[in-house]
């Protein structure tokens, strides 16, 4: 449904994306993962014909986004990052405006309007002025306008940014419920979000695609070690050495946040928390904290980028 070939974009001398080639199959939900300024928004803006690429091609539903942009835009529902909607309009008024701009007929507009208001939970505030909406509701209006013309492809740029935890869950569930019916490409810089909602993840950094796989495979591939965070009261110098002797522990390093805090790396799949706690208590070191360290996106990038450097 979405296919790009060697997409490159320069802003003046600054290269935002470089040779981005990706594809999204019909009915798939794909996460576009990357830190800030990695080129996610640039790629999405090219796909939605907001701006053309410097070089390379992109097609959406078989229509070129530059040469046949009117058709490709018709096939896309787009929610931009920090989705900015006219604050002086009422929700339905705005959606009717969108319908008009997209050339939808009267009957179609009415049907779809009812549908999107219901899907996005906007019925109660349908006639309120958008300027009075919270960020979460504004995001819902954004989603509603994206679904309005029943496009086969949805492009969502950071759809959960700025929402509170409950709204985030709601939006994610909404996106998941669209699976199969729509082809969805959503960008995010939150790894668990991609893990939760997407069937496939494309990781972009410094404007280049560095990995592409299912979330599970990707984390398994990156996670060569489990990591625990351990904090004790004692400042016994021998502690790291003694810990390393516990079976399945592969490395112990200072956590770097002051005091006697350590990162304990273990073999994949091993859970040595019980042994570790026992050991610390027996030695009388005073166990203060022990928890698994979640793999953050930063870690993922560090892993992926250092691997790349290793190849060179």
């Amino acid at each position, binding site marked *: 449904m979405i296919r790009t070939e060697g997409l490159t974009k320069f*802003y003046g001398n600054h290269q935002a994306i470089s040779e981005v080639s990706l594809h999204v199959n019909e009915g798939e939900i794909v996460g576009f993962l990357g830190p800030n300024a990695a080129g996610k928004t640039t790629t999405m*803006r090219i796909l*939605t*014909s*907001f*701006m*053309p690429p410097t070089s390379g091609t992109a097609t959406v539903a078989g229509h070129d986004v530059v040469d046949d942009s*009117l*058709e490709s*835009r*018709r096939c*896309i529902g*787009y929610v*931009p990052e*920090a*989705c*900015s*909607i*006219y604050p*002086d*309009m009422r929700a339905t008024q705005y959606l009717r*405006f*969108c319908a*008009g*701009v*997209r*050339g939808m007929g009267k009957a179609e507009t009415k049907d779809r309007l009812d549908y999107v208001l219901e899907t996005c939970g906007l019925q109660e505030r349908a006639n309120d002025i958008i300027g009075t909406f919270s960020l979460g509701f504004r995001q819902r209006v954004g989603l509603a*306008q994206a679904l309005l013309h029943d496009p086969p492809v949805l492009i969502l740029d950071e759809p959960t940014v700025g929402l509170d935890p409950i709204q985030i869950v709601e939006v994610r569930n909404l996106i998941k419920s669209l699976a199969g019916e729509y082809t969805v490409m959503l960008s995010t810089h939150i790894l668990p979000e991609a893990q939760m909602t997407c069937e496939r993840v494309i990781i972009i950094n410094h404007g280049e695609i560095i990995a592409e796989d299912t979330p599970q495979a990707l984390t398994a591939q990156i996670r060569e070690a489990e990591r625990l965070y351990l904090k004790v009261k004692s400042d016994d110098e021998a502690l790291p050495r003694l810990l390393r002797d516990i079976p399945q522990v592969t490395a112990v390093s200072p956590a770097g946040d002051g005091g006697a805090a350590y990162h304990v790396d273990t073999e994949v799949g091993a859970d040595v928390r019980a042994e570790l706690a026992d050991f610390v208590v027996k030695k009388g070191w005073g166990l203060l904290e022990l928890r698994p360290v979640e793999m953050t996106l930063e870690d993922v990038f560090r892993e992926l980028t250092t691997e790349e450097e290793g190849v060179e």
Partner: protein
Amino acid sequence: MRKVLTIAGKELRSYFVSPMGYVVMVFFLGVCGLIFALTVSHPQAQADMRGMFHTMVFITLMMAPVLTMGLLAQERASGSMELLMTNPVRDWEVALGKYLAAMGLFTGLCILSLEFPLILEKYGDPDWGAILSGYLGLLFCAMAFIAIGLFASSLTSNQIAAAILAAFMLLFFWLIGWLSMSVSQSLGDVVKYVSIYENFQDFEKGIIDTKPILFFLSLTAFALFMTVRSLEHRRMI
């Protein structure tokens, strides 16, 4: 065309959601009313509007930048441009829709200002031919002013900058006529040809000539064309 009208309707509506529409209305009708009152209270006052149209054109010249400054600059500043331009609309449809909204508001003001000739009609015997020709000239002027204002608005995301730029361009075309007095005969003719003031004078006298009509139409078309090009160019950056 439905897309154009949808955009125009939305824009026209938003003039009256914000104070903008009302402020412009009060300003235009207020100043016109003041000038009208001063003109007719003169002891030898005549039942015509020749002097008034001159003022009305100048008010329009000052008003057009204010009316148009937000049309595109605001979209760019707030980021709503992104959603608008990723709709399946052509650049010219957006430009034309915005243009028609401002023209619609101005036409409404012209209709409201018909109160002045109607008052003349009640107390005197005005020459309606000259009055209608004056209004026609006013509309042609407004067409060009608003197109130039829209172009200025397409160049920046700062509304104030857009307004100042538009006012500067309009004043240039307004004042350039004065140059004709201090340059050579042949150059003076050229200068006169592109002066808004010179071109408007015929309408004021009740003469509808093709030359000034062509002038205003070409100025409008050129400014609108440049607006569309500017929208296209903005996509490229």
